[in-house]
């Protein structure tokens, strides 16, 4: 007897059928409570920002522009993760707002208070060394994780997989990250005491954006979100097990944040650029690898689930086996688009993009048991006709064609990023 090949994704939590967006959200009490909290957070943050607008308008505008720009690659990654079963924009907006308005406005007074409590119960030395490492992560990870819980409360049916928890967690973290970075930059401007100047903003941007940009709130809260996603979707496990897994993920997010903020290795490796890069790797790599493995596993699980839905169709005009394989991974989807552009120009690329979107949507509707699939089937067939006319009937890149270009591009981008990082570290770290 030959055993069925075990998919890599089988190791992670299963996927539940995607639910249609619920238009009755306002019927739930949680919706109104979350809305009120968003309003309160909005008022609080507006009061803070108003002070900056009066005192440092140019610096504020510059920091808003720079950190919004920094959010683009994060947003791009989150969007790619969310490609198959897309989360409703309204919920993503609530998650983003929670991070940027609610979690930040709660964290500002709470982190300061906890830092003081550490000084009072321990000593000023303890607070100076470990206050930032303990107070920030404790308060911030809690406040951000509450944002994912809030999404569960107002739209439980939208959390169909661990990956959905990752997407909402990352979105909450992204909102928090942008606003926190702007507040930090404005604090640096005020401390510099040179009026409305942009130099402190640029320094903050280089430090928080390039040097420590990857180890960010987006990453930490994605991990916490994975745990909450597991708690919600893994219904066949006991509540105690699911709660334990969620607590473990929250602890891992907290511990990663503590490790990153901690004074460990601060003095042990010297002051040069090499030492700073070594610290980045030693303190940052373990959580980065952990989170990457977890997110990849959750993504693969969701991708396998929706690819299986499409396999049931057995209709090569709707999706071929090779396209099904390509649809499962962001890199292969991108390779298919790039290859289409090389063969049939931008129109072919756009058609492949629309075809992939329609195929993903069809998979979600199949999982929902939607009786009438004609809308998405028609869209796929229309894009297929466009591709046929352009002489590129199948939306895939042949093995060895697309990937090497993308690999070369990735290697080049990584080398460029490292060169920029090296220059920044040398400038700031005194290399």
């Amino acid at each position: 007897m030959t055993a069925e090949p075990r998919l890599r994704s089988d190791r992670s939590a299963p996927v539940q059928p995607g639910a249609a967006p619920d238009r009755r959200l306002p019927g739930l009490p949680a919706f109104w409570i979350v809305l009120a909290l968003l309003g309160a957070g909005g008022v609080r943050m507006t009061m803070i920002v108003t002070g900056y607008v009066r005192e440092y308008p140019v610096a504020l505008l510059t920091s808003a522009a720079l950190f919004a720009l920094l959010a683009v690659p994060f947003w791009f990654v989150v969007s790619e993760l969310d490609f198959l079963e897309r989360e409703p924009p309204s919920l993503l907006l609530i998650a983003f707002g929670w991070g940027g308005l609610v979690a930040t406005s709660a964290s500002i007074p709470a982190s300061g208070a906890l830092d003081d409590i550490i000084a009072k119960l321990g000593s000023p030395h303890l607070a100076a060394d470990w206050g930032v490492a303990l107070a920030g992560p404790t308060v911030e990870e809690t406040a951000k994780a509450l944002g994912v819980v809030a999404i569960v409360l107002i739209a439980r049916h939208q959390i169909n997989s661990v990956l959905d928890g990752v997407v909402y967690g990352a979105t909450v973290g992204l909102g928090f990250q942008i606003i926190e970075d702007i507040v930090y930059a404005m604090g640096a401007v005020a401390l510099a005491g040179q009026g409305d100047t942009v130099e402190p903003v640029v320094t903050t941007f280089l430090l928080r954006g390039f040097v420590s940009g990857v180890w960010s709130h987006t990453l930490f809260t994605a991990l916490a979100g994975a745990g909450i996603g597991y708690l919600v979707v893994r219904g066949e496990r006991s509540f105690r097990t699911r709660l334990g897994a969620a607590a473990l993920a929250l602890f891992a997010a907290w511990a990663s944040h503590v490790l990153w903020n901690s004074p460990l290795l601060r003095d042990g490796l010297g002051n040069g650029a090499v030492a700073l890069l070594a610290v980045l790797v030693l303190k940052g790599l373990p959580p980065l690898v952990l989170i990457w493995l977890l997110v990849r596993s959750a993504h693969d699980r969701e991708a396998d689930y929706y690819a299986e839905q499409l396999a049931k169709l057995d209709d090569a005009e709707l999706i071929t086996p090779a396209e099904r394989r390509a649809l499962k991974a962001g890199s292969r989807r991108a390779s298919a688009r790039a290859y289409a552009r090389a063969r049939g120009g931008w129109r072919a690329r756009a058609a492949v993009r629309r075809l992939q979107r329609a195929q993903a949507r069809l998979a979600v509707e199949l999982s929902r048991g939607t009786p009438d699939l004609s809308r998405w089937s028609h869209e796929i067939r229309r894009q297929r006709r466009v591709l046929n006319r352009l002489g590129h009937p199948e939306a895939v890149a042949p093995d060895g064609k697309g990937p090497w270009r993308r690999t070369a591009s990735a290697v080049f981008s990584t080398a460029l990023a490292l060169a920029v990082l090296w220059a920044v570290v040398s400038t700031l770290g005194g290399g």
Partner: protein
Amino acid sequence: MGMGRVTRRQLTNLLGACGVAATLGGLTFGLPALNHALPADRAVPTDRPYDIGGGVSVVPPPGARLDLTDTRPGEESGTVLFRVGPVRYLISVQPFDGSLGAAVDRLRRRITGNSGYQVTGTELSVATTDGLRGVQGGFSGPGRGGRYVVFVADSRTIEVTVSGADLDLGRILPAINRSTATLRYAPEPAG
């Protein structure tokens, strides 16, 4: 479901949302309340130097108590806040690449950046018993007066700000001046 009847789902949902709001409230208001409930000051010896951070030390004035909320010693920088009766005596050490004039200008801007605060009088040159040379000036704010002194030593700025009601300042400033004169920069030998 009858009109106006609360379902079990809505009740669970309400309880969950209240739990989220309560946890958030605990962070936003509970932690600051706990912080306020704990005493912020601690006795500090006034007969020997106190290490502020960044290699700088000072002998606190008699009767001074350490305010734990604004005291953070560090290797490269540090801050200490003493409370001498109702008067605040804050010393901050930060890395700084610039002249004494630039350091004074920076602190002056920060003071006048506070609503209602302005710099008063003329600035004087001062020196510590250890030979640090600095600039001293005065400021006034709503219901308060103050004194600032700035020193620059070996890529570090030492900023001293003293503030309180005018009557208290007049009584306590001489002791604080004597304390400021004991400021000493003694960097750790490079290992």
